[in-house]
């Protein structure tokens, strides 16, 4: 079936194709359309599923944990503050080892209130143990969501998966999406076979107190699961390609990297601008390529080591900032390629809070880096407008006034 719709509606339909049995969700822009659509599908009898309209995202994740622990396939969607609000339970879901799948529509964190895209929300949830996948097109959102259940439920993994895609750029724009038939999806995604559940015939206690003597082994098993997930993500992509026909890359998607001397690394839809920039730069004689990170956790270490070998320049685009250091993706890519590449590394922190980034801007920034004219970490779209300066002056004047008053 082919439709033209938003990524949000398409993903709701993908959740139906995945035969999700319990959905718990709380509204937050720009994710809300997903859960609206799912509740409509259920209400009209199109989707056979329990819908729990919880009173917060913390409760949304708690309900998913409860339902998943009882042995059914579960799904939710959130964004930004919602993801932050459930942060405690992201840790819980991963450590108690449940194959929960959730969409996070990447949105900036407040204040000030900003509903537009950046990756700060998901980056802040990086070290919870969740597998994080990032999409760059409507079709990839649908295909990745279906794959996410396969990855999460694989007994070599059993880890929650967060499917990320960009606010508005993907969530609210209308594009063509093709859905596989239900039988095709069933072939790819077998019925959930839970590794553990709340079992009346074999009562076990889960998540009780664990002393230092045993805790570290549990955390190590989570790290092993992520190690296994690298293989499982690639397998899922390959098998999906055979059964359904679509393919968007394994842990990474590479674009013109083979003969490239300069590599741009990006995540999400901004990679499309990066590809455009590469085309322009190649016309100008610069051999550039793009590595798009599809799986941020587990991180594609080997892929980056292979790609970066012998390259001259690395430019990493971050739609986030690890304040006090640099872009989080930049740190990760440098760490992964350490000892495998002599490329000079540059970071572009940009596209925050939905700031529009053109391929021309990226091309200019990459050219500057290649020519050695750029600082290591740059915010290339930064512009201090008159109203930024005016509010800065206003704060300073008020501060000085207060100091004067307290001095007198």
């Amino acid at each position, binding site marked *: 079936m082919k439709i033209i719709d938003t990524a949000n509606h398409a993903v709701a339909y993908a959740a139906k194709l995945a035969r999700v049995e319990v959905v718990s969700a709380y509204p937050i822009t720009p994710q809300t359309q997903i859960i609206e659509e799912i509740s409509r599908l259920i209400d009209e009898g199109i989707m056979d599923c329990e819908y729990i309209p919880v009173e917060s995202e913390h*409760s949304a994740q708690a*309900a998913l944990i*409860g339902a998943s622990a009882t042995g059914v396939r579960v799904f939710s969607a959130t964004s930004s503050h919602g993801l932050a609000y459930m942060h405690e339970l992201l840790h819980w879901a991963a450590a108690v080892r449940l194959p929960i799948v959730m969409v996070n529509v990447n949105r900036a964190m407040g204040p000030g209130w900003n509903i537009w895209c950046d990756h700060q929300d998901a980056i802040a949830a990086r070290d919870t143990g969740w597998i994080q996948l990032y999409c760059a097109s409507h079709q990839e959102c649908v295909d990745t969501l279906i794959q996410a259940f396969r990855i999460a439920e694989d007994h070599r993994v059993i880890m929650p998966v967060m499917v990320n895609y960009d606010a508005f750029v993907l969530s609210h724009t209308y594009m063509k999406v093709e859905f596989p038939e239900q039988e095709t999806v069933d072939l790819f995604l077998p019925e959930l076979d839970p590794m553990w559940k709340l079992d009346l015939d074999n*009562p076990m206690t889960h998540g009780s107190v664990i002393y230092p003597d045993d805790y570290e082994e549990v955390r190590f098993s989570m790290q092993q699961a992520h190690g296994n997930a690298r293989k499982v993500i690639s397998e899922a992509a390959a098998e999906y390609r055979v059964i359904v026909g679509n393919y968007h890359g394994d842990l990474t998607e590479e674009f013109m990297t083979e003969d490239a001397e300069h590599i741009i690394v990006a995540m999400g839809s901004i990679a499309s601008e990066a590809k455009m920039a590469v085309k322009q730069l190649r016309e100008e004689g610069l051999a550039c390529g793009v590595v798009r990170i599809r799986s941020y956790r587990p991180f594609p270490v080997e892929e980056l080591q292979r790609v970066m070998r012998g390259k001259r320049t690395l430019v990493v685009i971050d739609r986030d900032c690890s304040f006090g250091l640099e872009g989080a993706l930049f740190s990760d890519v440098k760490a992964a390629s350490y000892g495998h590449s002599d490329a000079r590394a540059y970071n572009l922190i940009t596209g925050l809070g939905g700031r529009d980034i053109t391929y021309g801007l990226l091309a200019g920034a990459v050219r500057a880096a290649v020519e050695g004219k750029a600082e290591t970490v740059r915010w290339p779209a930064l512009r201090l407008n008159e109203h930024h300066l005016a509010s800065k002056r206003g704060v300073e004047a008020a501060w000085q006034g207060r100091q004067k008053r307290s001095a007198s």
Partner: protein
Amino acid sequence: MRLKDLPEEELFLQGSAACQGCPGSMALRVAFKALGRNTLLVVIASCISVLQSPFPVSALDLPVLNMAFASGGAVASGISAAVRRLKKRGVFTEEPTVLVWAGDGGTYDIGIQALSGAAERNTNFIYVCYNNEAYSNTGTQRSGATPYAAWTTNTVSGKQEWRKDVAQIMVAHNVPYVATASLAYPMDFYQKMQKAKSIPGTKYIEILAPCPPAWKFPSEATVQVSRLAVQSGLWLLYECENGHTHYTSGTARLIEGRSSAKPVEEYLRMQGRFRHLFSPEKDEKRVGEIQERISGIVESLKFTAKMREHIMDLEIMPRP
């Protein structure tokens, strides 16, 4: 049915890590007997998280999911929804009872939102709050359930506020069943748990849990302190079915005038957490305030009961 007629099977096993005289484990033992094996248990961060014993052993012979502090009502919503699915698929022949067990911190304070949400959705589960009137697990700090004038580590001269009443907040949620219970009246508690099991929708049961280390009384006196709380009229035993409240056991006897209320001072004097009310000299003001408040509530309940009888006698409305 009497205490000796309770099922012999123990689902709360020996060898737990509970303190001597722990009210939590006593309550769990009775609750498990009432609900039986077909129960899925959620334990919210509390002393029960610890006293079930650390990995790799457990004193709880049921499937148990330990969960984060603020999540009780919500995790039950998830389990309850999944149970419905599995029943539809024929995995369960008899639907298991979903039981959430939380302390007063996890109920009155950090967990009230999730509990309220689950109750508003009339989630099919039993929520038990074992109320020891403080954060005992972290070494006794005040909670929304800590009574007026009680010592805790962060109310060293006595709490300045009166406690809130979550059971009544649950009544205001229009859930099908709300009840309070006491360790000194185990059959009353047992019957309320059994009734809760038979009713679909949200059931809230709160049991007063006098905690020897936090309240500072000898560990053999847990039941005695529990009984005095009821006999003084400080802790009311009742059940509210579909909005109709009736008082039970020791509280019913008080209200019907079959027994007279003991002075609250007797209850307060048993506990080190109220010692500053009596030493070096009696704090007449605060003890008086507590007594006045309790007497006021008991008298108003007596009056309401009499009025109801009177109205019934007038036969202007049908008897229930």
